[in-house]
């Protein structure tokens, strides 16, 4: 029988396929990069002199102070908005990637109807959440309930200020960058605690207290493991750590020091725990606490909490990439080359902009690989129990991180040739592990009767 409803049964995507593809490609490729580009273009004009020089070049005398300062303030606000907007867009796009990747890992298709390949599903979800009823439990603490997501948002957006997207594409290169990231990202736990308490629900309280214990405990091994590349670079500044590495894999810190290899895994594990991702998603354990600390939230408020969780993955990935995987360093291009390309003029040259864009692409690609790894881990591993989570932290990660730290203390005193040898050795080891893993994956498919590689059914 034909079910007749008010709307036509053929979707917009089916009727206008070209527009659908164009819209999807735009959102997928253009929007994040438009944001990046805007950031890139506006960042050199962080300094008032540069702004002045550009204005003179265009033939525009900015004249007196107030006009110039106003323009300067506008540029700063634009840059801040871009950074904040980027977190939202990234969170949305990551939900789409996660749902599609998770789908295929689970022998199903993820969302594939809204937009081409389901790309508009995150836009649809965001709009849907805006329209939902704003429910606040009657016995809840209204002020705290409403304020809690914003605490988490603060913890999410502040670290973006020091994330080194490219060689000069960084909002503020603080000389205590790493320390700043660790400190401000811990703000998220305030939001978790406040939301759990303010919800006036025992389940939410369980989730919140678990979350607090988890994040506070895992700050220790995270901090110690992060000290390893800091010692190797000799600076806390994010750009400084990256500049101490090189573009090729054997020049990354993860390869230059066997203790850094171990510290990478400790740092990644601790980051997963800080970000409440499986196997450490106890605060929001779906099968036990049914969404834990954000159980009573609905509509836009829960959208903010979820946005914090997903965009936090970018921070986790970006931190690991900066510290261990060479950041934005382009293989074969040294930092001096980029600085030379800048030229002596007040305004940088076009080649310099080109290098910046390339370094931006490198950084984004590496961070996306790590984000995909986090997604992969989430959909493979079960959840640990609370006491097991604590024992893992205190009995395994903290001693391991300390051991790496002590090892690095002596390692940095070794001559650079030792570092180079270690770089090549660990790089070869990594490559061998990768090849073995791919072979094991192929064997998985071959071992099961009736299974084969089949990339159809999207």
């Amino acid at each position, binding site marked *: *029988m034909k079910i007749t409803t008010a709307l036509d049964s053929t979707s917009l995507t089916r009727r206008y396929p070209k527009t659908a593809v164009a819209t999807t490609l735009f959102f997928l490729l253009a929007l994040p990069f438009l944001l990046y580009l805007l950031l890139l273009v506006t960042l050199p004009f962080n300094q008032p002199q540069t702004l002045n020089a550009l204005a003179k070049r265009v033939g525009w005398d900015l004249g007196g102070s107030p006009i110039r300062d106003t323009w300067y303030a506008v540029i700063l606000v634009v840059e801040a908005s871009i950074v904040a907007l980027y977190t939202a867009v990234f969170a949305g796009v990551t939900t789409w990637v996660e749902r599609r990747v998770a789908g295929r890992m689970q022998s199903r298709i993820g969302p594939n109807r809204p937009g081409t390949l389901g790309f508009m599903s995150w836009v649809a979800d965001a709009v849907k959440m805006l329209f939902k009823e704003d429910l606040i439990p009657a016995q809840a603490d209204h002020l705290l309930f409403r304020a809690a997501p914003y605490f988490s948002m603060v913890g999410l957006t502040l670290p973006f200020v020091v994330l080194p997207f490219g060689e000069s594409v960084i909002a503020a290169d603080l000389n205590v960058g790493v320390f700043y990231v660790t400190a401000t990202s811990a703000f998220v736990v305030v939001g978790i605690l406040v939301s759990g308490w303010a919800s006036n629900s025992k389940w939410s309280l369980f989730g919140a207290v678990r979350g607090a214990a988890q994040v506070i405990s895992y700050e220790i091994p995270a901090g110690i493991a992060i000290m390893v590349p800091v010692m190797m670079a000799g600076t806390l500044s994010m750009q400084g750590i990256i500049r101490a590495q090189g573009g090729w894999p054997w020049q990354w810190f993860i390869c230059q020091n066997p203790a850094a290899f171990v510290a990478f895994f400790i740092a990644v594990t601790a980051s997963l725990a800080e970000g409440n991702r499986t196997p450490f998603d106890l605060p929001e354990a779906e099968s036990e606490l049914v969404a834990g600390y954000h159980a009573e939230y609905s509509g836009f408020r829960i959208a903010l909490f979820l946005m914090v969780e997903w965009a936090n993955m970018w921070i986790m990935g970006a931190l690991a990439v900066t510290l261990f995987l060479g950041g934005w360093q382009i293989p074969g291009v040294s930092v001096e080359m980029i600085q030379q390309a800048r030229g002596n003029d007040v305004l940088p040259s076009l080649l310099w902009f080109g290098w910046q864009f390339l370094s931006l692409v490198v950084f984004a690609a590496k961070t996306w690989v790590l984000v995909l790894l986090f997604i992969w881990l989430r959909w*493979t591993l079960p959840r640990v129990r609370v006491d097991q989570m604590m024992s893992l932290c205190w009995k395994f990660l903290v001693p391991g991180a300390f051991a790496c730290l002590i090892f690095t203390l002596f390692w940095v005193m070794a001559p650079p040739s030792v570092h180079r040898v270690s770089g090549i050795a660990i790089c070869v080891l990594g490559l061998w592990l990768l090849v073995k893993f791919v072979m094991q994956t192929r064997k998985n498919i071959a071992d099961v009767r009736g299974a084969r590689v089949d990339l159809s059914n999207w």
Partner: protein
Amino acid sequence: MTETIRQYVGDIRDVVTTFWQGLSVTLSHMFRRPITIQYPDRTDKRVADMLPARYRGLLEVDLAVCTGCLACARACPIDVIKISVDKDPANPKQRVITQFDIDESKCMFCGLCVEPCPTGAIAHTREFEATMRAVDNLVFRWIPDPAKPVPFYRPVKGQDAPRAPVGSRIRPLLDGLVWAAPAADWGAPDDEGHKHKG
């Protein structure tokens, strides 16, 4: 002490090896075909045609071969089949069926009515899509007009009853369903609590 050290190292080793295995399994599944069947619009055939022949879908009656034995109505444990028989006013020797209603909203598709039927008049089809806004409209009235009753079929010895292909009788009925049709007034429920009469 050695026991604890061995256990400690063993734990780390087990974690690494089992994670390696698990991650490789999930990665391998990314390259296998998902089993999702994208119903209803991205399938090769209609889903109803992909189902096995014995699928117990909506019931269909071919009144041309119905003998009026009432075995199906008696076999149904929840009395969703309502059959009324009468003598044909024109021909007292002939008996007719004046009402054959099946309440598909209550049917549990168990198949107990299909088994005792001597001619195969009542059978499960492979159709399963019949949603109606008003649940009462899901009563399928196989004799829509009591003024036009259907005579009993007399089975011929040694010959199979000429039943129409299964699924052919229900198609016009399903195509004629309008989802938003208002609920017909069925009147008060009968003794068994069913609202079959129109």
